[in-house]
């Protein structure tokens, strides 16, 4: 595989500088894989430089060198390239960044860093649909003509891909965008009213403009897993409800659980938070949930739980009921209405 002409030219003209940077990386990271870096340059950096060349050829030199440095940092940390810890960065550079070539041409370091950091952060959140984020970021790229809009879009799509803890900030970010982009970003029809959509999103975390998502969420979301299988729970967890979500205890580890129609996320919490959390009374006016054997009784109907009826317990807040059992390391979450 050969480099495109613009990138090959940049590297040739800055040969000594680029070689010195690799030497520095070798010092800072003794395990630096020069071969992997070479592959990443060809497969992932080259498409970015080539795309910029089509928009703004005069910026190719600067973009090429900055992209080279960022790529070096990523490969040196084993975050990109063949054999990297992260599988997605190569795709972000190869498939997504060229779609935003116009922004890269003007603010290369900021855009490359933002998108690289975003995928690294999203990948760390268990249960997030990264493929969905990538695909929607690609599809909506033509709406984006500024870095600010790109930032907002990335946040909203991260939330919709399952990063439930971004919910409030993502809705706020959507409000900063022009209505057509905001509606597209949250998956609403183009002829919808943004303010009405926003009000519904804020009122009920289990509501989505996409009917399929709402229906899927009614069937419940499972979160958490045994540490032996890559999860974070050493023992079956205990759950306490609070206004914003749930506080979870498993052995000596404490977590904060947030859930909505798009997914559920566990964040680190402290013992004090767990001990200080108080039960939230159901102020929604709905009858409280009940358990009958292995059936969860909600106002909207009954749900047959695929769990032994022995030692089942639940906690609930204004919108959500969380089911736990001493026979599973998972927590099941259902919308109350």
């Amino acid at each position, binding site marked *: 595989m050969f480099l495109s002409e613009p990138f090959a030219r940049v590297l040739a003209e800055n040969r000594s500088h680029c070689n010195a940077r690799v030497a520095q990386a070798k010092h800072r990271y003794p395990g630096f894989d020069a071969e992997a870096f070479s592959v990443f340059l060809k497969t992932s950096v080259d498409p970015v430089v080539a795309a910029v060349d089509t928009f703004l050829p005069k910026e190719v030199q600067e973009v090429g060198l900055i992209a080279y440095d960022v790529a070096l940092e*990523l490969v040196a940390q084993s975050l990109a390239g063949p054999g990297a810890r992260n599988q997605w960065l190569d795709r972000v550079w190869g498939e997504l960044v060229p779609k935003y070539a116009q922004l890269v041409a003007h603010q290369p370091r900021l855009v490359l860093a933002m998108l690289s950091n975003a995928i690294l952060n999203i990948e760390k959140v268990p249960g997030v649909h990264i493929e969905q984020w990538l695909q929607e970021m690609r599809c909506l790229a033509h709406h984006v003509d500024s870095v600010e809009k790109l930032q907002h879009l990335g946040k909203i799509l991260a939330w919709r891909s399952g990063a439930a803890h971004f919910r409030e900030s993502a809705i706020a970010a959507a409000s900063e965008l022009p209505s057509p982009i905001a509606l597209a970003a949250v998956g609403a029809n183009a002829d919808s009213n943004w303010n009405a959509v926003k009000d519904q999103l804020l009122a009920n975390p289990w509501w989505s403009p996409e009917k399929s998502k709402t229906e899927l969420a009614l069937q419940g979301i499972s979160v958490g897993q045994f540490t032996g299988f890559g999860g974070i729970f050493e023992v079956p967890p205990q759950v306490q409800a609070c206004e914003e979500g749930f506080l979870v205890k498993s052995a000596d580890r404490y977590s904060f659980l947030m859930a909505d129609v798009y997914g559920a996320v566990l964040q680190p919490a402290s013992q004090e938070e767990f001990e200080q959390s108080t039960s939230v009374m159901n102020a929604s006016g709905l009858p409280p949930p009940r358990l009958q054997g292995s059936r969860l009784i909600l106002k909207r109907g009954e749900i047959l739980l695929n769990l032994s009826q022995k030692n089942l317990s639940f906690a609930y807040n204004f919108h959500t009921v969380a089911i736990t059992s001493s026979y599973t390391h998972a927590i099941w979450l259902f919308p109350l209405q």
Partner: protein
Amino acid sequence: MPPFNIFQRVSQAPTNPKTATKTRQFDVASLYQGPVSTETTTASEDQPLDEKLRQAYFWIVNNAIISPHYDIEYNDGPPQTYTVGDSKRTLTLPSAQSYSSFILLPLLTFITRKKCLFVGGPGRGKTASAVLMGVLSGATVREVRRAMQHGHPQMSTADLLGNPLPADLINAQNMEDIRISWRKWLSMRVKIVDEYNRIPTRTQSALLTVMGDNYAELLGHIYECPESAWYLTANDEQGGGTYQVIDALKDRIDVTVQALAFNPHFLNNLLLRIEEDIRPEQLVPREIIFSDEQVDHAAAAIRQIELPEAVRRRIEFFVSQFELCETAGAQFEYMTKDTARLSGVDWNQIVVADNGRDRLKDLGCQTRNGVSVRALISLLLFSKALAYFRGSSAVDLEDVRQILPFVLIGKLQADLEAPFFSLPENAAYRVDRLSWLRRIFDLANDEFNRLDLDREDPVRDLSAEFEKGLNNLSERETRARLSKIERLIADRARGRKLYGHLYDDLLKLKYLHQRYTNYLHWLRSQ
């Protein structure tokens, strides 16, 4: 300058992460923060200074020092341990963030503006580390190197402090007219004296004035030095060398760190450094350089770190083990090792006369002296500094345990003739004094636990009662307290051997008794 510098990269993440307990506020801006830096994600100027200090530590560990040794070990659960070799030494894999003393202690010295001695063989990075600390203060590498004092046998006071201007020497009618050209290093915030044990004794005295009292004097002229951190290097911990280091100078040193051996597994890094001509001191990132005000603020914050009473009591108990020398004095107050030292009587004669106690059990028998007040001040301050560095608001017993050997090494002198050192399992402590000091602190703590002093300590209770003040204390109550003290002394004295902690208890009780007696006299005169 390149867009970002790999070598100068400072950790963007908290370097001692702890679970947040504040109100949960998720900021999606964090989505775009990560390993790749942007213009908007550079280190904030208003970040906490303890975090900045940790970033400085980790930058040095990861970039400047090729083979760090993690000898300050912390655990938050049972560590993995392995018994290795015929001598059955223990290799420990700590379960919490642990540190390299060779970097951490100089850094704590820098932030507290105290004095640190580097010891170890030539070419082990002693001077290089000192230079790094100078650069952290904002001086350029060239300034730091030029200001460094290199000890040599011909070093004069003028070399060290400065010279009178030759023209003034001829023309001046009185001493005040002689202007002095003070040496530049006296104004530096980080002062480095390389190979201080090669400085002649007379010049050492001039150095002592600068180190101890922070001013220089020449021909009746005074130069007031700014508060500064001091780094001295020596090849010999005991102060030997071309000239014997005077005791007063040694006592001014707050901590002593040893430059450990280079691990050849890191030779590749050394090779790269040679090939690329990289000098870490020239690449110190701007984000980890401290201004004078920042050091002042950090030092003030360190002084505010709490030292809980329970920890303080254990330090007191440990220190009280060492000063008693029962055969040295006829009067109770003079039964100290210092009395024996001042008398000039041979130490072995004094030790032979001391035959009443279990010399194996008594920790005091392992040393030839006690702990000086200056060493205690260093111990307390550096323990606080370590707690601050670790992001704690209070000193933990483990902080004291880790710092103590570096403060007391060279100050608490081991008596190698003591029975403790003749046991085969303790043979290594004859050589490895750091481990010995940590061991005797552990033994003192075991004894403290055995005596159950955390729960029941009548001397502590009486002291606490006295601390509440004497205002409006009735004559009857005063007499009751006096008799309580007398009963306690009688109880302590009955049929027991005298150990260091008991000696200090009795002296404290005598002090309390005297204060109440004086108060009683005053009360009766009213």
